């Protein structure tokens, strides 16, 4: 096994007393002395700073934006070409079988595309992009850290250093100097809260992180709370809630496929797995990702088998993410169910330690999104 890689903020995490764990080939903070539960609550109430430098940052350049966008549309079922300058969208890299190779953010940065992809998938994503896109230059950005500042106070904290951020809306992107550091900023995140992601030159990232942490409302937040925050927000984790065996339609991510890429659209299909994905969009999938609330206090985690009835012999699905939701104040989960069982309010059963316990199908997100539209 190779040694886990360090992010540019590694020394700062140790100084802050983080408990470090291996994750996607990196050594990253799972929690700080504040504890997972309090880090979660702090992010929802104030602002949390996350080191997400392990994620992949990719620039795609063609002769112009349209050139790069057209090339990416061959791999992502989304309207990349029509994305306005300085705007960002959520997209999926699909397989020929209609599965999800990765989920990502892509942004129109004027003359090029900027992508943020999952750490565990970045090497495969780069190979996929390079093998399948012609006439564009694909560059992995390895000299920049990625920080996320999330929570209702994020705007106030960041605007004190760069007033322009207050004018950004959800999914806007901009190049800004923040406290003298050149940042690529997007108003987005992975918590269900308002917030920003900042791509920062690696050699200035610790300095900027310290500046943000100096604000009384900002606390450092680890991977533990990142997971419970995104779960309550109903956001997918690739390799768990979505993967090569789930289609975008089954994952209830059909909204990320704009009309003009669907049947009858002006740029219909033309991406891997289009036949399967477009027919599922038109006709409906046989199973669907849903939110689930266990009725008792016991968390039901990934892998719990789901049954239509307490006495049923045959499983109908499984939990793909689950745990305790600190803001909800109880256990929450996501999983896949046949569409006939996927209506909110339906009671199903999960097998936990040999017992069948009830769960209720619940609309996602579990906690209301707090974006600045």
């Amino acid at each position, binding site marked *: 096994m190779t040694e886990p890689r360090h992010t540019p903020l590694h020394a700062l995490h140790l100084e802050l007393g983080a408990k470090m764990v291996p994750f996607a080939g990196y050594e990253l903070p799972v929690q700080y002395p504040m504890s997972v539960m309090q880090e979660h609550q702090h992010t929802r109430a104030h602002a949390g700073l996350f080191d997400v430098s392990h994620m992949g940052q990719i620039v795609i350049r063609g002769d112009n934006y349209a050139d790069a966008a057209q090339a990416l549309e061959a791999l992502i079922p989304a309207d990349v070409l029509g994305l306005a300058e300085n705007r960002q969208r959520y997209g999926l890299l699909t397989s020929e079988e209609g599965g999800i190779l990765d989920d990502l953010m892509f942004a129109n940065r004027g003359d090029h595309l900027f992508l943020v992809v999952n750490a565990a998938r970045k090497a495969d994503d780069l190979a996929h992009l390079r093998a399948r896109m012609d006439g564009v230059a694909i560059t992995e950005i390895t000299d920049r850290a990625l920080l996320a500042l999330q929570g209702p106070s994020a705007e106030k904290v960041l605007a004190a250093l760069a007033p322009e951020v207050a004018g950004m809306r959800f999914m806007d992107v901009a190049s800004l100097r923040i406290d003298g550091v050149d940042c690529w900023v997007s108003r987005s995140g992975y918590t269900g809260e308002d917030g920003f992601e900042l791509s920062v030159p690696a050699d200035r990232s610790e300095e900027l992180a310290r500046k943000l942490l100096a604000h009384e409302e900002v606390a450092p937040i680890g991977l*533990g709370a990142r997971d419970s925050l995104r779960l309550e927000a109903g956001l997918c984790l690739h390799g768990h809630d979505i993967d090569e065996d789930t289609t975008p339609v089954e994952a209830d991510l059909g909204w990320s496929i704009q009309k003009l890429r669907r049947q009858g659209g002006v740029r219909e299909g033309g991406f891997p797995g289009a036949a399967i994905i477009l027919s599922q969009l038109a006709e409906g999938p046989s199973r669907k990702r849903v939110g689930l609330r266990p009725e008792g206090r016991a968390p039901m985690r990934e892998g719990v088998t789901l049954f239509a009835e307490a006495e049923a012999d045959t499983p109908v699905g499984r939990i793909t993410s689950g745990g305790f939701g*600190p803001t909800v104040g109880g*256990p929450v989960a996501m999983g896949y169910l046949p569409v006939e069982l996927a209506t909110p309010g339906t009671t199903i059963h999960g097998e936990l330690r040999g017992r069948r316990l009830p769960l209720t199908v619940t609309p996602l997100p579990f906690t209301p999104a707090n974006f600045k539209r």
Partner: protein
Amino acid sequence: MKYTQEHEWLRPEGDIVTVGITKHATTQLGDIVFVELPEVGATVSKGEEIVVIESVKAASEIMAPIDGEIVEVNEALAANPALANQDATGAGWFFKIRPSDPSQMDDCMDEAAYTALIG
């Protein structure tokens, strides 16, 4: 107070022993969000898994440290599992057991030995 290798503490009072898990254990587990306690009146054997604890991170089991009968469980802990993090050796106790063979406690560590164990 006595301690086990599994980070349980045992506090004998008369012919009853109160059992919980140590501060070191709750710190390692992280925020505890669920505790499932044994039935009052159950007869348990040393090494039997009788409590389930779920922290934000994972599920784990607590074993009966000695043979005996469960005479009381901490319902307040079941209702508010965070008590185990807040007051591990006080309000965060798990159950009370009447030992069938009190000499089994001779295998437990004293405070000095436990402190040495957790370093």
